[in-house]
């Protein structure tokens, strides 16, 4: 008999608004406590202390406009947050400070989450949807200099970029960008040439989320449809459909592959979180707790694998934390 689906390890309440994005920072050693950042619809970024399971600080920097992407630059003290006020803020959180030290004005009205890639010590690339609708701009951080702007061919009718994923094969090698578009296609961009290398139509609907495993050269994307699309990148840098995984209910708002590339989690509009084995897309568990659409899923970066957690943020204002290491 299969085990009954697990309960959340615990649930974080108190954002008092729908949760749109989550990011763990748990790699620190004692006495640093594990932290979860959450961005919510009311424009706050909450810093959760996972030891006391309470909000340590609430950062208000996006004029009460929804925050839909948070990410740290290396340490937990430097945080990037992206909000619907068209700004990306860099926070300084060291020693109890809560100030915005820098910000980028994106002028983009969409809700495409940025993607961050560390290319060298103290140097990052950040891909973000640009001012003109179909473009993606890549900036270098912390200098904020524009590396390139990726424009689709004229007449491609891709629509807005919906989701971005910067990646490189191994550190030091050339960075690539995968972008999912409104028309359901995923495009692989070469950053140095600023050229689209390959385009694959994965979905009929806008691509809501994608993630890519550079080791297996395989990626996955989800849309508002009832399918997950798994595609691979061959040696000729061509994207091809690998598999289509059918779902019971439609709508995927977020997909994350765990850092060990063994499992992945999806956030469903059907209020459920689904866990799959990444190798064969074997369904492992359906985590049912939320009472509204799940907006985001995130795996923690604990050093000790057994401590690792999965967090999911939902429209019902709650963040559920799951310990699924033993279940996989």
């Amino acid at each position, binding site marked *: 008999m299969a085990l*009954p689906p697990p*309960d959340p390890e615990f*649930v974080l309440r108190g954002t008092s608004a729908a949760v749109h994005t989550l990011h763990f920072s748990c790699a620190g050693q004692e006495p640093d406590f594990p932290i979860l950042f959450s961005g919510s619809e009311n424009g706050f970024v909450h810093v959760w202390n996972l030891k*006391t399971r309470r909000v340590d600080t609430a950062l208000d920097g996006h004029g009460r406009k929804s925050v839909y992407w948070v990410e740290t630059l290396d340490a937990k003290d430097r945080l990037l947050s992206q909000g619907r006020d068209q700004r990306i803020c860099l926070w300084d959180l060291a020693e109890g400070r809560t100030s915005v030290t820098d910000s980028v004005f994106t002028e983009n009205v969409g809700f495409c989450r940025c993607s961050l890639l560390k290319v060298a010590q103290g140097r990052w690339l950040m891909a973000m949807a640009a001012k003109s609708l179909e473009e993606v701009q890549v900036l270098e951080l912390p200098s904020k200099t524009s590396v390139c702007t990726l424009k689709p061919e004229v007449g491609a009718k891709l629509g807005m970029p919906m989701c971005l994923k910067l990646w490189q094969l191994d550190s030091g090698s050339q960075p690539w960008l995968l972008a999912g578009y409104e028309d359901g296609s995923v495009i692989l961009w070469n950053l140095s040439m600023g050229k689209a290398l390959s385009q694959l139509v994965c979905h009929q609907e806008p691509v809501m989320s994608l993630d890519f495993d550079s080791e297996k050269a395989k990626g996955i994307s989800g849309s508002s449809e009832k399918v997950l699309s798994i595609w691979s990148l061959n040696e000729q840098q061509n994207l091809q459909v690998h598999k289509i995984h059918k779902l019971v209910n439609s709508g995927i708002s977020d997909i994350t592959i765990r850092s060990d590339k063994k499992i992945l989690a999806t956030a469903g509009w059907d209020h459920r979180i689904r866990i799959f084995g990444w190798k064969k897309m074997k369904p492992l568990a359906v985590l049912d707790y939320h009472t509204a659409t799940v907006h985001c899923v995130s795996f923690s970066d604990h050093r000790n694998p057994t401590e690792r957690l999965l967090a999911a943020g939902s429209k019902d*204002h709650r963040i559920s934390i799951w310990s699924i290491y033993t279940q996989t």
Partner: protein
Amino acid sequence: MAVFDTPQEAFGALRPVCVQLTKAQTWENVAQLQARLGAVSAPALQELQEYVLFPLRFALKVPGPKQERLVQSVVQCISSVLAATCVKKQELLQELFSELCTCLSPPSALNKPALLSEELKLAVIQALHTLMHSAYGDVILSLYQPSTLPLLGFAVSLLLGLAEQEKAKQIKISALKCLQVLILQCDCQEHRHLDEDGAQQCGDLFASFLPGVSITLSRVITGDIKQGHTITVSAIRLFYQIVGLVMSDEQLSRVPKNKEKLSVEQSRISELMIHRGPDWSKSTAEKLTLLMHKIVESSSVHPHWKVKLELVELVHHLMKNCRQSLVDSFSHLLKALVGLVNDENSEVQNRCNEVLQSIAEQRIVAENRALADVLSENLHSLATALPRLMNSQDDQGKFSTLSLLLGYLKLLGPKINIVLNSVAHLHRLSKALMQVLELDVTDVKIVEDRRWGSESSYEPSGCLQKGKCQKKYFRFFTEEKVFQLLQQVCRVLGYYGNLYLLVDHFMGLYTESVMYRKQSAMVLNELIAGAAGVGVDVLHEREDSVNMDDLKGSITSILDEYTDQANWYLITSIDTEEVGTEFSVQHSELPASPGSARSSVLIPSSDPHLSTRTMNGNIWQICIQLEGIGCFAAVLGKDFRLLLLSALYPVLEKAGDKTLLISETAMGTLVDICEACSYDSLQCLINENSDYLVNGISLNLRQLAHQPHASRVLDTMLRHSDVSLLPLVEDVIQDVLSTLDQSYDNQASTFLRVLYSLMAALVQWFGTSCSEEHQQGQTAEWRSRTLSQVQQQQLVTRQEVERFFLDYVRQKQIAEGNLPDTDDEEADGVPPLAKPEPNNSDTEGETPLPSHAQLAKDVMERCIHLLSDRNLRVRLKVLDVLELCVTVLHPHGNHLLPMAHRVWPALVTRLISDDPLAVLRAFKVLCTLAQKCGDFLRQRFSKDVLPKLASSLLSQAPASARAGPVYNHTLAFKLQLAVLQGLGSLCEKLDMGESDLNKVADACLIYLSAKQPMKLQEAAQRNFLFFNKPICSISVTAAHNWSQKCEVPTQKLNPPSYLAY
């Protein structure tokens, strides 16, 4: 007073008597001398000392039998001379000494006290005593030469004989005192202290007497208790003084390895001399150990405290002086000391503590491995014997045994770990504790005492007491002080011992067997308290205070174990409502802490062997664990806040338990936690940690087996908090409701309890805004229940009835053509119409409901579904909840009315065709609803309910009229009463029409009959009050009916004159 100051004068005065005495040794002559001596000054006498002594000594020396009386007076005279003078010559001293000694034993029977009178013996002893005091310095030392050894020995043996064998107390004491002087250990301050060599020499000499002295003294000490404590005390003192002198480490260390060769003429004496070499000291120590054992055994239980005190001194003295030589005896000595630490007598106790303290301070034990070994050996043997002793001894015996145990532990101090590291020792010790601490679980009351208050009353949070331990009853002892000792034992263990080791061991026992679980939990609690240094009484500080992280670690692991499902959800009652769920949980092995509750639900299996004993045990188990949590909180203080994450939920769960003892203990624990974590009040604690609790509730609601617990936690939260909690728990209340939606069948009763608490809390919190009318309604209801109030109302009622008829008369006149005068009628004091519903303004707009009202509405929604539950208990509960819902929703008419509309059909069913109990409650709900909804219900009431009610009243009337006094206790009566009481106001509130009122009046009329029970009559009477308004029409009918039906006028109502009309 002295008359003769100069030697010349004195000589002149004394000479004649001396001469006479020399000539004739008679008692009279001695007496004469004695009398003269009184008149001679001390300096003068000193000059004439030998001269005066001569005739006296001569008198003693005269051969042949002597009169005892003479000897006695001579001896007394000698001692009075000696008392006033000094002996300055060695020869004189020795001669006098031997002469006096001879007085006691005639030369014929050496070493055997002659059959002399007691007075004489006493006189001689005192003379000897005086002699020793009149000799100074070198003179006295001359007595302590090897050459005088035989003489000394003679004296010592004589005195010992007296001390042991005499009957008279005085002689015994004097003999012992004299011996004390003889060994140069007199208490008085006049003596010069011996230098090292002198002491060494004396030591060598006394070593020869040691066997005799010690054996005799030990006999005296252990002798008959009736001899009086002074003798025992002096004997003990003498014993330790001589032993301390001879066996002194200092002296023994200076004894040369080989015996000195003495000159030839001394060779005979040298045979008597003892060489205190290592062999000798070893064998002597062995023998002394035996004696010491005896002495300790008898003295430590001596009834007089001074003896005990002296024993403490003995230990102190020997521990100080003979640390090495007498190490073998230490186990006995320490045992004595340790056993006396908790003596009833405070002086003994204090001195004992001082001595222990000094021992501890000198680190005699801590740094002396041998001693530590001795102690741990003692401890081990004690622990081995402990279970047996606990079985056989009475409380007093147990007390002293445990005092001993505690004392050993205290003395061992940091060295406890040597003992604990030995598995055998730890095992023995823990097993002993397990046995002693076994609880008495036979009390049935513990299981039976239920918390009934949960249904209605709200405990005011102010009167909570600090969580003090519940009084426990043990199998093997009853006295509280025994328990306190045990507590101390555990705390001292925790204070000095290796915490990890101890916690690990006792946790092992905890999990090993149900038999040990309660005891080991108790021990663990105390260990932690001890480790933190709370309430421990120790002799010396430990070197390093406990590491807070270690402590926290231990506490966390214990806490996890305590709140583990298997140890937390125990069966404590056979209440059918609870058992099923408790059972199903018990088998899964996961922690109860929220978030990790993943038990699979098992089918409840009823255990036929579940005895009261087991349940009582389980209750205690939970209480002890709860107390433990309180104790941990106190230990960690604010650091405990972090643990609230896992600890608070289970404690609240137990605070809502139905077993009185458990819920009380849990409340105590909560208060402890409040204090430890510095929260101002229980409310603060709950409110500030509501996120943890809500999380736990929400997660546990997902598990069928945990739903009752989750609801219990919410229940407790609501009960003990205030309105500020509402926004924090709203979220989870929705969870509760949605869970309820999923399981109407089996869990309804569990959730109804929460819904009830919720609504009751809402009524309480928003009471003022929920209309005062309700309050009044309720108070009116209350009032009607109290007798005095009833009588008062009855009075009023009579007047009202009278007025009613007067009115009727006038009305009739009006009808016959007299002027109608409505103003007049108003002025007559007819009660005005029921006030229009307040808060009508609310009904205007579609303003969003405040959250509490929304909740009430949501709950009401569920009530509609549950009103037709199969289970009567559920239905009753639902009706209660419904009433509260109506009260809360009251100010929001435009929400209440649609709800009332939806509730109506289900409610009517309850009113018309249900168990009388349900009808009763339903009627109450109806009354409340009518109060709130007013005429909204009129039509429905008159159509659906009233006919049925009226007809049931009518049909019941004959039954109640015939019934005896027992009827008052039947359900049918209560129903009648309730309906009669409620009907009038109901009609008024609903503004009923004429025909309906007629029906009511008809139904009520029968109850005015004197045959009906009093209460029903009164209730029916009062109803007519409410009919005042449509007075003309109804009164005619009523009066008409009455005159027809009431052939027998009621006796209680004085037949008024107007009936003639």
